[in-house]
């Protein structure tokens, strides 16, 4: 019967010895595995439950097909498949022998390791191991001679010239592992050949490799004796090596055999597309120590085989930024193994193990996780560590400013939200407002497509196409907020959640619509994948598939095929993350473009570099921008006409890169919609549609006439208003109560005769919606001075002092967009045109106060704002940054208060608080009076100084100060405390308050004080008129260079008085 004896020639003692070794090997193996498992047990729980069944299904498919290993490196994939096959068969063979020898045969007397089954298995084992040997040899050759950069552990991308000790160890590990495999294989074949030589079984041909080797041995004249001794020593060598190999699996690179199976099973089905939420009860934001990683993250670390595919694909690494996804994971693994899943006090994860710069280099393009054969989700790991960085305020100042701006205005451009749909005004038709009219489609436009001038043109093209195709759509107009995809990827999770809340609320206040469309892949991704975790969202489609559908169904007809050679850039968020590869290509083909693919296309598309919030972070000196790398790739394709994008950020990045990269003559950058508009001759379409065109023209003309008439009427009214001598205006009835309150105030201060009250200034009609209110000034002269006194807030009490107290004045300052309108009395801006933010100078003042108190080590920072309830937004922000208490004083009649009156109100609180120092900002960003601090000091009788850029104070006694004079001269001087100091920006870098901290700050005390007694007529001015200074579009200078230069010279001399 065809078989082979398993324990050939072994006596009982040897057999026992072998079993002893076997058991020891299993014990070491089990200990190694247990060590990993106990490490994972220190990890955090998964944010969402795992679907084991589908995970296993996907894992088995990927492992058997080797799909993830073959991608972009076929040879390595094949080699690995060979090794995998050899070892899989070896494992099955060994398991079967174990089954027969140790279970079935002793218990039931059943044997099957014989006959045809034995022969068949023998053949497959032989061939499988041959494949493994070939695979191993290729792998060794590849490592040794191909010089692949992805297998180089030298971190030259971050300027290192010496191999780190750990990296040298990795290299040794790699070689040990692969050599171990080879030795096991070769001893196996030798043993087999020796056995065949000795036994000469008639079925030797079923082991073709062993048989051939036996033939060679015979040819070489190997004696039977020699063969016998090789057989017996080989048996032990091979057997013990097999056992050693098994025992060592969990201890080094071999562990990937097990961890990868788990890692692939545990994969997030929507990695990066949908980032994990922050646990509600999390003590600190994101990941700050290894135990904040989930057990799955740790499993991922242990699965990395250093194949370097991510290292190759990463745009940050390619551009020379200090990030290689591979090295990030390896560093994390090293640290986690050292710490065994438990955080350390001596070594901080962020800073000591992973640099903040490394984390900020990421563009969250997903190229690394896409190509990772073992399912590691690098971007999610990076973003969760960024959450901690954001919490610490460890970020680029520009990013910090932008996040603040988004929090204030809902867009990254800091524009007034009313301007969001300004681009629609140049269209020939009116775009629906979904808040008023139902529509089939809600177009979620996104920031870049709304505000960036170049992208506005694309938005206009797409709107025209939709109109021409008869596709009904509407916008959210100013109710839209930035979707937050990139905000989330910077790690500002709280701000993302607040944006989601705002947008979801806007969606609930609309008229019906059935679908959301967008031109922005970033908005597309988050609305599609992340918003559903927070609330109901209609299905969403990217405009590339909308256009493909309109062209396919003939609702858009190509009348002028473009006949251009184009290349197409797959946006990360459309292609790699959401699989939208085909629609844009279908569109391009149907408008007559020949697509020349760049080498890196579809899932291997190379990020423009703008993702993950990087568009808000300045580029590092001495790096090549990823976008430039990309345009070089396009230029190398040979003659192409157009570099096509379908993402607003791409358009911006590549327009730039084309110029800076020196390809201005090579091709142009255009958006998909612009090309389609050209191919369907959008500009002439309306001519075929005369009736509605006529209607539109009539409408447009009517609107323009109405505009002109309205402007003229405004001017006439304005002129009349201006002609009224203000002080003589007749008091209106509604102002009487205000006058009375002044009288009351005067009773409290009897030195002021009531007869001094000036007639009230009021130019508005009684039905005016003016928020300006009325300021009445008390009459005064050199013979009758009316010194401004602190306001009296009788009910207000301050807690007792515990250390130095610094009072900081905070203004919720208004931001005015480019568009606005005035109140009917022409004295103020209509409130709906104003958005608000924490005044930049007060932010610096607060920071200085916090730094001062932190340095002293005791005391408190109290903040005060004079403003309506809305001002609490800024107060919460400063409380979140570290202020201890807040006070808000308000009464509606303070809306017209000038800075001297505001100072009077602050002085009232200061008299109760008795602070040791008062910090104000030098000025506010809206009115820029630069007055409050000085007036406040005078009212309180305190020493003071303006434009302070340096403060030294020990909590009592003298202040050492630096003032910044014009042209940069610094004035060093001293003042006694208490004093009032107006702080200049630039003195410090204000810390960032995350949305999470702002929410937590709701627990801090905020007193609201009635300010009705503040306005007493001692104020400084009355605004008579507010108007837009005359502005014209550039007056063009024409003529020869000489003539133009002369004109410019005149302007210079005229302006600069030369």
């Amino acid at each position, binding site marked *: 019967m065809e078989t082979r004896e398993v324990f050939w020639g072994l006596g009982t003692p040897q057999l026992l010895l072998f079993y002893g070794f076997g058991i020891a090997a299993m014990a070491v193996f089990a200990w190694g595995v247990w060590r990993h498992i106990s490490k994972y047990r220190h990890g955090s729980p998964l944010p969402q439950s795992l679907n084991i069944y589908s995970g296993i299904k996907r894992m088995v498919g990927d492992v058997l097909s080797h799909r993830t290993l073959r991608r972009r490196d076929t040879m390595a994939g094949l080699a690995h498949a060979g090794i995998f096959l050899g070892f899989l068969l070896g494992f099955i063979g060994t398991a079967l022998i174990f089954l027969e020898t140790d279970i079935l045969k002793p218990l039931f007397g059943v044997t099957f390791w014989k006959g045809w089954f034995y022969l068949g298995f023998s053949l497959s084992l032989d061939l499988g191991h041959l494949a493994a040997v070939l695979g191993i040899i290729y792998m060794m050759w590849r490592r040794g001679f191909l010089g692949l950069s992805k297998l180089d552990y030298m971190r030259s991308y971050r300027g290192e010239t010496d191999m780190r000790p750990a990296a040298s160890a990795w290299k040794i590990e790699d070689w040990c592992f692969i050599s171990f495999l080879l030795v096991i294989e070769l001893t196996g074949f030798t043993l087999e050949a020796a056995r065949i030589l000795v036994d000469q079984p008639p079925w030797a041909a079923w082991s073709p490799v062993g048989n051939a080797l036996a033939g060679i041995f015979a040819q070489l004249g190997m004696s039977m004796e020699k063969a016998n001794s090789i057989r017996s020593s080989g048996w032990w060598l091979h057997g013990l090596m097999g056992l050693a190999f098994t025992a060592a699996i969990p201890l080094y690179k071999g562990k990937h055999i097990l961890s990868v199976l788990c890692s692939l099973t545990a994969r997030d089905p929507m990695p990066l597309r949908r980032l994990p939420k922050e646990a509600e009860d999390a003590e600190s934001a994101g990941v700050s120590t290894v135990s904040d990683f989930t057990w799955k993250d740790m499993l991922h670390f242990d699965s990395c085989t250093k194949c370097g595919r991510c290292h190759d694909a990463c745009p940050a690494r390619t551009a020379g930024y200090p990030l290689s996804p591979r090295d990030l994971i390896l560093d994390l693994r090293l640290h986690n193994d050292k710490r065994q899943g438990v955080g350390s006090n001596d070594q901080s994860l962020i800073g000591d193990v992973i640099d903040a710069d490394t984390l900020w280099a990421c563009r969250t393009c997903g190229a690394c996780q896409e190509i990772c054969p073992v399912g590691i989700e690098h971007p999610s790991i990076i973003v969760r560590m960024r959450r901690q960085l954001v919490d610490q305020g460890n970020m680029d100042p520009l990013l910090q400013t932008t996040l603040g701006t988004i929090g204030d205005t809902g867009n990254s451009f800091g524009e007034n939200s009313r301007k969001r749909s300004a681009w629609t005004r140049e269209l020939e038709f009116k775009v629906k407002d979904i808040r008023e009219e139902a529509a089939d489609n809600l177009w979620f436009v996104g920031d870049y497509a709304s505000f960036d001038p170049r992208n506005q043109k694309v938005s206009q093209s797409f709107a025209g196409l939709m109109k021409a195709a008869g596709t009904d759509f509407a916008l959210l107009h100013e109710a839209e907020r930035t979707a937050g995809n990139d905000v989330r990827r910077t790690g500002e999770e709280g701000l993302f959640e607040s944006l989601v809340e705002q947008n979801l609320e806007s969606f609930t206040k609309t008229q019906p619509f059935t679908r959301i469309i967008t031109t922005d892949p970033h908005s597309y991704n988050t609305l599609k994948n992340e918003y559903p975790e927070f609330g109901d969202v209609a299905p969403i489609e990217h405009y590339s598939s909308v256009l493909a559908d309109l062209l396919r169904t003939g609702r858009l007809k190509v009348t002028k095929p473009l006949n251009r050679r184009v290349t197409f850039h797959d946006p990360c968020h459309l292609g790699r993350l959401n699989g939208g590869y085909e629609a844009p290509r279908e569109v391009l083909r149907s408008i007559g473009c020949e697509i020349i693919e760049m080498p890196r296309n579809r899932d291997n598309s190379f990020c423009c570099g703008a993702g993950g919030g990087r568009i808000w972070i300045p580029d590092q000196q001495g790096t090549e921008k990823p976008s430039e790398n990309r345009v070089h790739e396009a230029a190398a394709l040979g003659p192409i006409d157009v570099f096509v994008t379908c993402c607003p950020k791409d358009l911006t990045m590549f327009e730039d890169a084309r110029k800076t990269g020196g390809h201005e003559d090579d091709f142009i950058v255009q958006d998909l919609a612009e090309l389609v508009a050209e191919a369907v001759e959008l500009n002439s379409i309306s001519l075929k549609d005369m009736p509605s065109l006529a209607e539109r023209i009539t409408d447009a003309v009517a609107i323009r006439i109405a505009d002109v008439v309205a402007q003229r009427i405004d001017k006439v009214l304005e002129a009349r208003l201006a002609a009224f001598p203000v002080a003589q205006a007749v008091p209106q009835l509604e102002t009487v109560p205000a006058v009375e309150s002044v009288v009351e105030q005067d009773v409290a201060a009897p030195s002021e005769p009531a007869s001094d009250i000036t007639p009230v200034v009021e130019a508005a009609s009684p039905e005016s919606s003016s928020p300006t209110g009325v300021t009445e000034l008390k009459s*005064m002269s*050199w013979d009758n001075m009316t010194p401004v006194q602190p306001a009296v807030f009788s009910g207000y009490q301050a807690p007792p002092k515990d250390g130095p107290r610094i009072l900081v004045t905070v203004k919720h300052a208004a931001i005015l967009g480019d568009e606005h309108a005035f109140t009917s009395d022409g004295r103020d801006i209509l409130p709906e045109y104003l958005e608000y933010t924490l005044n930049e100078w007060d932010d610096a003042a607060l920071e200085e106060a916090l730094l001062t108190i932190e340095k002293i080590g005791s005391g408190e920072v109290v903040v005060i704002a004079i403003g309506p309830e809305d001002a609490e937004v800024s107060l919460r922000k400063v409380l979140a940054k570290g202020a201890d208490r807040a006070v808000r004083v308000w009464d509606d009649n303070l809306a017209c208060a000038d800075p*001297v009156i505001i100072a009077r109100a602050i002085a009232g609180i200061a008299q109760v608080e008795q602070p040791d120092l008062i910090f104000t900002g*030098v000025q506010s960003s809206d009115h820029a009076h630069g007055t409050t601090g000085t007036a406040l000091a005078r009212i309180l009788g305190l020493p003071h100084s303006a434009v302070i850029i340096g403060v030294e104070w020990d909590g009592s006694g003298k202040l050492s100060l630096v003032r910044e*004079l014009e042209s940069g001269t610094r004035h060093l001087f001293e003042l006694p405390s208490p004093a009032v100091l107006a702080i200049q920006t630039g003195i410090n870098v204000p810390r960032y308050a995350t949305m999470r901290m702002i929410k937590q700050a709701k627990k801090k005390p905020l007193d609201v004080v009635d300010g009705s007694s503040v306005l007493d007529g001692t104020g400084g001015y009355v*605004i008579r008129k507010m108007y837009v200074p005359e502005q014209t579009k550039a007056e063009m200078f024409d003529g020869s260079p000489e003539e133009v230069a002369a004109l410019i*010279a005149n302007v210079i001399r005229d302006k600069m008085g030369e």
Partner: protein
Amino acid sequence: MSGILIIAEHIQGALRDITGEMIGAAASIKEAYGGPVYVAIISDNPESLSEDTNLAGVDEVFTVKVSGPDFDAAVYEEVACQIGAETKPGLILFGHTVNGMACSSAVAARLGAGYASDVFELGVEASEIVATRSAYGNKVNLEMVFPGKGIVVLGLRGATFLIPEEKGSAAITSKDIDVSAVTGTMTHVEYQEAPPSDIDISKADFIMSIGRGIQDKENLPRFEELAKRLGATFGCSRPIVDSGWLPKPHQVGQSGKVASNCKLYIALGISGAVQHQFGMKHVDTIIAVNTDPEAPIFNVATYGVTMDIFELADALERQFN
């Protein structure tokens, strides 16, 4: 109303331009508002500055001798109030400067006077002051009046009003003012001059910026030279800094500096991305040069030129030779 009191500003023994500018502003409304125009010089050696303040329109210069040469907000406030009480001017002028900001509103609050700061236009209607200032980053102007206020204190914007060219014939009077009550709160330590090489976009009043239009780093020196020749601070847009052609302090825009004190801005080869506009669109006079007539920079520019910047630079060099 009548009478204008100007508080002169000086540093390290020399008058600052703002003093002459305040005199110019006062002179421009003197007829409508009514004189006399007084100038008060507060210093340990005020006489040395009296001739320089004796400009056309000034009726009387008061020299006020105090213990030190350096600005002390409390002393200035005290002197303004005491001279005011004696001469009873309807209008007191300070510069809206770092020094002026430290005392103008204190004087206003102490007197209960009308007050406005950063005023750049001064008018008189029915012998009452009308002051114009701006708000919201110069997007709107405000006209302010002070009904009932027998005294108005104003802080005037610098580099706005013209200094009278002619000398005046003012009487120089020494004033003995007792400031002992407020002297000594502030202790002067020293002045430190800014390093001369420092460029500060936010303070520059005239900036010439270059953008991608210069094409190559090799072209940089000639534009730097041109800026020097024009007397302008040399600025640039982000790509220039990103390319490492100029250091960061030169950058105008959202991620660079805002040209907050700029009066004249020349943009050469800058298309005018929003981020760049952020730093300069508020500037009073902007000259933009770009080959693309559709460049967004022309939407914010006062004057535009569509021309090759190299040709224009040649011509400008000849103009300013």
